[in-house]
């Protein structure tokens, strides 16, 4: 009898530790990352929901003509940005107005899109699904198509213990997958954890970054996720006013959400309209291309001066922010629905 109890306790203990390990498995930011903004409580991350979200992310069923998936514009090998064209392509090859941003560390963002039009990660997917030049569908159409698939019914049942497919289940699953996209394994992170050291050049670049860039591209995300005007001349063909489009506040004209500097080698072209192909061009913009306007961020009142050696040093530091473990992580890559459940 006693023995049974002990065995039972042991069993429970082992099961429990599995649950703990499993949890850490999905979301394990380093301890110098602050508390996430996203509320993980309802519902908590769960492997079946994440898997469903991953399958949906790669499935063109979300678009009107079944040709475009989220991954068409957010490729895992580009840190979930898009590199083929500057302005992302949607169905029928219509061109969207903006460059598809990289997707990682979304759990810490307060707002989404270049202008902060979206206020919650869960609501984000409604935008591309409904946008005529992105996926051109709507959520009711998507629910209808998913309902016709036996395999999806099963996936929803596994994920939510209920096979009725609803807006909230689709959006929660997509969020759960995207929340697992954490980039925290760069050389910078390893240095931070004391596992590696910077070269002299990188150290010098780090200092230049701290002096000139850190107020907006702040550690550890390399963005403060606020809206700033970094002096890009307006492209008259697009005339994109950024944050102003949402707030209609004059002070917000030409301000865009500060993008992260992690994974830059994978996320070119750069800026909201993808106007720069290389980091050299970006640095040259900051040293000699800043255009004055009423809303220009105050940091640029004093011009940034960098010698050509310093530019090289700065770039060598920026390259320590590439996260190969993240970009080539198989857990984030393409998964076909038929791999999961055969119809």
């Amino acid at each position, binding site marked *: 009898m006693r023995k049974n109890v002990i065995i039972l306790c042991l069993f429970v203990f082992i099961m429990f530790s599995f649950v703990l390990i499993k949890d850490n498995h999905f979301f394990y930011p380093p301890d110098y990352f602050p508390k996430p903004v996203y509320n993980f409580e309802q519902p908590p991350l769960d492997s079946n929901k994440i898997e469903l979200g991953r399958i949906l992310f790669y499935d063109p069923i979300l678009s009107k003509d079944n040709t475009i998936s989220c991954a068409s514009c957010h490729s895992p090998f580009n840190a979930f940005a898009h590199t083929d064209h500057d302005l992302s392509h949607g169905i029928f090859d219509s061109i969207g107005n903006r460059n598809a941003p990289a997707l990682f560390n979304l759990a810490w963002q307060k707002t989404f899109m270049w202008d902060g039009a979206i206020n919650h990660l869960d609501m984000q997917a409604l935008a591309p699904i409904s946008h005529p030049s992105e996926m051109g569908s709507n959520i009711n159409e998507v629910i209808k198509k998913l309902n016709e698939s036996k395999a999806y019914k099963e996936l929803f049942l596994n994920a939510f213990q209920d096979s009725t497919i609803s807006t909230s289940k689709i*959006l929660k699953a997509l969020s759960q997958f995207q929340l697992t996209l954490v980039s925290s394994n760069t050389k910078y992170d390893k240095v931070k954890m004391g596992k590696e050291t910077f070269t002299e050049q990188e150290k010098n670049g780090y200092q230049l970054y701290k002096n000139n860039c850190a107020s907006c591209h702040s550690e550890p995300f390399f963005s403060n996720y606020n809206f700033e005007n970094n002096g890009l001349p307006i492209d008259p063909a697009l005339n994109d006013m950024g944050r102003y489009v949402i707030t209609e506040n004059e002070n917000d004209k030409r301000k865009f959400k500060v993008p992260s500097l992690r994974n830059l080698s994978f996320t070119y072209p750069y800026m909201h309209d993808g106007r720069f192909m290389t980091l050299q061009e970006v640095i040259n913009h900051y040293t000699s291309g800043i255009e004055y306007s009423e809303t220009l961020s105050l940091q640029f009142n004093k011009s940034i001066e960098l010698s050509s050696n310093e530019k090289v040093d700065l770039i060598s530091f920026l390259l320590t922010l590439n996260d190969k473990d993240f970009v080539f992580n198989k857990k984030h890559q393409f998964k076909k629905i038929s791999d999961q459940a055969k119809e």
Partner: protein
Amino acid sequence: MKLYVLFGMLFMTFQTHSQNAVKITFMPKFESENLTLNKVYYFKNDTLNISNFKCYISNLTYYKNDSIVHSSIKKAHLIDATDSSSFIILENEFFKFDKIRFNIGVDSLTNVSGIFEGDLDPANGMYWTWQSGYINFKIEGSSSLCPARKNKFYWHIGGYSPSFNTLRQVSLKTNGKVSIQLDKLFEEIDISEEYQVMSPSDGAVQIADKLPSLFKSNQ
């Protein structure tokens, strides 16, 4: 035997309670008639019809002698002209009241709290997808005075940020029958000027200001 009587009495009290459970009816109307979608109305010097009408009622609270007697359990209720059962809010409880207070629209906390189900499901067509936020009040149709293509007008009233806040509160002495006088909108808005409001904006705020006066007690 005694037990039967007790059960019988219990049953009866339940019955009477459920029969008297408080019920509020929000009836969309055009002048004195109940609204019929796509029906042609002749109103002043205009010929118009309404093809779609939806609005949110939220934070419904009941008062008796100016103190709260009940707060509706439902966070937000969607009134949809295509579904007459949506005109009724049932409280499953009995209490006396002489006044109600509610919001037209969805409050800002709900607007920034992610995804909900039921009446707040974005699939109901009352959510802006390209810019987060609920549409509080939506009415569409055509009017002979409207200069747009096919004379179509769209009033999608929403916005929760302090600069374009379109949530409006209504306080109404009533015993449960409320009408939403949609004709009043056409009296108050110059449709030849303001016929397309589809985002949080000054125009939306101005129309929002007129919405509380549409709600009338209908004894």
